[in-house]
């Protein structure tokens, strides 16, 4: 017993996962920028099948979610679960296996998307061989995570781990059910479900991949790193409890709001809509909890890029989790569905919330892993403004584009005929798409700055060895 708790935390794997996450962020965001340029200049694919919009698009989304997002989630889950369980990782070799094998799967998976291997189900495009590999790795991730929890030295499981646990369990369930298919060949399978049924299953998955990975998983990050950075207890334990369970309950129902007025039964649409509205409350509960925690803190935001990013991410989180329920109202959805508004909404979450909280956490984490001050505070402050302006410009451009598409598509003239041709409306999107390209470039350049900054911070350094606090409390690197 004593021997075990004197071991060091396994933080090397955390460092490596952070590095991979940064690489994926740059690659996948660059692909996103390239895609947005293709929408302005379609010849940018140079007649090459692998540069074609349809093939690059899933590379962008999968690269962000599974490359950047999951690597960051694994890194922070491993970091957090050790510190809140007061014990090193269970089966550290398996954690290393997860780390590297995951990168290989994302890399090969990305290449397979370029080759045209795709099931087309959004955020589940990878074909069956990759689905199986992901399932196996996800189980390994679960074994390391829950194994560590099972051997924890502190009785109560910390709230971050509820959310990380939810991430692992629910994503496993969704991933397996949605990807059930019969293979034809190595690169082709046919879904077990067809038509309307397939659509309902897919969006049950698609929406909750957003829910339990991009929302829940990153809330797990927030609940550990925010109180840590602001030296404050989480504001309200009772709010945490109520929001976690209400979140886990209501999110799952919301998927079919992606299919409003589509060929699925109306009762499913209605249930999805009301649950999406209820979801606003637990989503905001976590935001309140976070913001109130910071507001009690005496830690200054000035020259603290980590905290600044996290606070900003909570603001965008609040915005996106308000906008989502609004877009799920059927009469709003009539306008927003199929338009760039949806793209804007996704990015207010993905850029404003997921990327920014990850950036904040990395700015906190990497100097501690490296045992050295951040390479350049100035670059980090510049990055903050690049990220903020890029995100806002992106959202505004897509709002304008989406709302005008939605309204112009429905516009009827004085003779009762359509007022605008599809082409005219599409052609009028050019200025918005131009702004979006600029926004993407600005955001990407910030990400590159940060990656440079963090790689310089960790360059030549070995990951600092930290012991669980029960033995040597002071070993935690000072904030």
């Amino acid at each position, binding site marked *: 017993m004593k021997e075990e708790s004197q071991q060091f935390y396994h933080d090397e794997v955390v460092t490596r996962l952070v590095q991979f996450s940064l690489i994926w962020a740059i690659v996948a965001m660059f692909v996103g920028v390239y895609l947005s340029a293709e929408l302005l200049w379609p010849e940018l694919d140079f007649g090459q099948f692998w540069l074609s919009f349809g093939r690059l698009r899933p590379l962008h989304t999968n690269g962000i979610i599974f490359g950047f997002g999951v690597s960051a989630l694994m890194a922070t889950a491993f970091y957090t679960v050790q510190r809140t369980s007061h014990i090193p990782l269970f089966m550290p070799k398996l954690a290393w296996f997860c780390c590297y094998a995951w990168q290989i799967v994302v890399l090969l998976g990305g290449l397979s998307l370029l080759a045209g291997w795709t099931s087309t189900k959004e955020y589940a495009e990878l074909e069956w061989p990759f689905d199986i590999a992901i399932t196996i790795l996800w189980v390994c991730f679960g074994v390391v995570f829950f194994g560590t929890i099972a051997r924890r030295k502190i009785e109560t499981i910390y709230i971050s781990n509820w959310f990380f646990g939810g991430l692992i369990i629910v994503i496993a369930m969704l991933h397996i059910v949605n990807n059930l298919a019969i293979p034809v060949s190595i690169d082709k399978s046919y879904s077990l479900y067809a038509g309307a049924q397939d659509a309902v299953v897919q969006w049950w998955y698609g929406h909750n991949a957003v829910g339990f990975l991009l929302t829940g998983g990153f809330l797990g990050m927030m609940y550990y790193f925010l109180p840590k950075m602001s030296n404050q207890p989480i504001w309200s334990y009772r709010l945490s409890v109520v929001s976690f369970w209400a979140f886990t309950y209501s999110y799952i129902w919301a998927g079919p709001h992606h299919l409003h007025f589509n060929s699925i039964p109306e009762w499913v649409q209605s249930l999805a809509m009301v649950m999406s509205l209820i979801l606003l409350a637990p989503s905001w509960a976590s935001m309140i909890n976070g913001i109130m925690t910071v507001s009690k803190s005496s830690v200054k935001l000035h020259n603290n890029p980590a905290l600044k990013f996290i606070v900003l991410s909570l603001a965008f989180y609040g915005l996106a989790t308000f906008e989502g329920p609004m877009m799920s109202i059927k009469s709003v959805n009539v306008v927003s569905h199929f338009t760039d508004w949806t793209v804007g909404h996704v990015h207010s979450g993905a850029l404003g919330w997921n990327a920014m909280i990850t950036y904040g956490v990395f700015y906190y984490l990497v100097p501690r892993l490296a045992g050295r001050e951040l390479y350049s505070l100035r670059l980090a402050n510049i990055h903050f403004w690049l990220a903020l302006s890029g995100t806002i410009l992106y959202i505004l451009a897509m709002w304008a584009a989406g709302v005008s598409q939605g309204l112009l598509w429905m516009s009827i003239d*004085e003779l009762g005929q359509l007022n605008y041709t599809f082409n005219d409306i599409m052609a009028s999107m050019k200025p918005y798409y131009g702004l979006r390209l600029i926004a993407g470039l600005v955001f990407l350049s910030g990400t590159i700055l940060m990656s440079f900054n963090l790689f310089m911070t960790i360059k030549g350094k070995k990951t600092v060895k930290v012991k669980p606090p029960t033995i040597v*409390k002071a070993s935690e690197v000072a904030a």
Partner: protein
Amino acid sequence: MADMPNDFWSGWIVLLTAVSFIGLIWLVLSVYFTPQSETQASDEPVWDGDIREGNTAPPLWWFWLILATMVFSVSYLMLYPGLGSFSGALRWSMGHELQQNKRDYATKFSTISEDIIASSLADLQARPEVMKTAGNLFNQNCAACHGYEAQGQASLFPSLRDDEWQWGDAPEQIETSIRHGRKAVMMSWQTALKDEGVENVSDYILNGLGTSDSASHAGQAQYNLFCMACHGEKGEGNPLIGAPNLINDIWLYGGSMAAISESIAHGRQGEMPAYDTRLDDVQIKILIAWLKK
């Protein structure tokens, strides 16, 4: 819509939804209104040296927020289809709403529609708002092939702004073209004519047809034998069978020697799809007026 679950699944949906809703209310109420004293545990955990859970009472407005969304939800599910096969007090459905919108639409625009059907083409052409709508309609439905403003494109899709109307320019003929589509059948004459014949006939069409010395042209005999039946002795064409005029210097597939030889050697099967299921009477009428303007 007919996509209602059967009784078993309907009961399943209602029961699970209701019970889990009650569960959610219970969770919120019991956690929210636990007395402050009971939430204070003596062995309050501390994680990682300094992380604690605060004991602040959650704000009341949040309680009102979730209560409001839940009250709305219950009311919505009473009014609209949601709880299994219960179709809601308003009897609303997507299909019904569309039918209702169509009825409203018909009421609102019936006078205009009747007026258009009753008007002459010249009257319609004199009304700028009708012509604007017709132009839109054309661009929405026809421009992908015939090009914006009907100027034709790709050496495959005819201009509708010149004097050549392959299938006739009478309003009734244009209407038939729109409603039922057209399929041209210019056969391949390579086997019959051989390379030399193709060349001779092409040259005859370009340089001999309609001229004074046409009779002396080497291609005339073959033209008369193979082409005249459709395109006419003087190359004037025949709109009844979609055989184009060959002497007006309008060439859909190109007027060069090479292009004409290609047409003769391999034939042409220009196709206009039928639009009678895509366009209604009013739309077709104003399109014809616009095209004839």
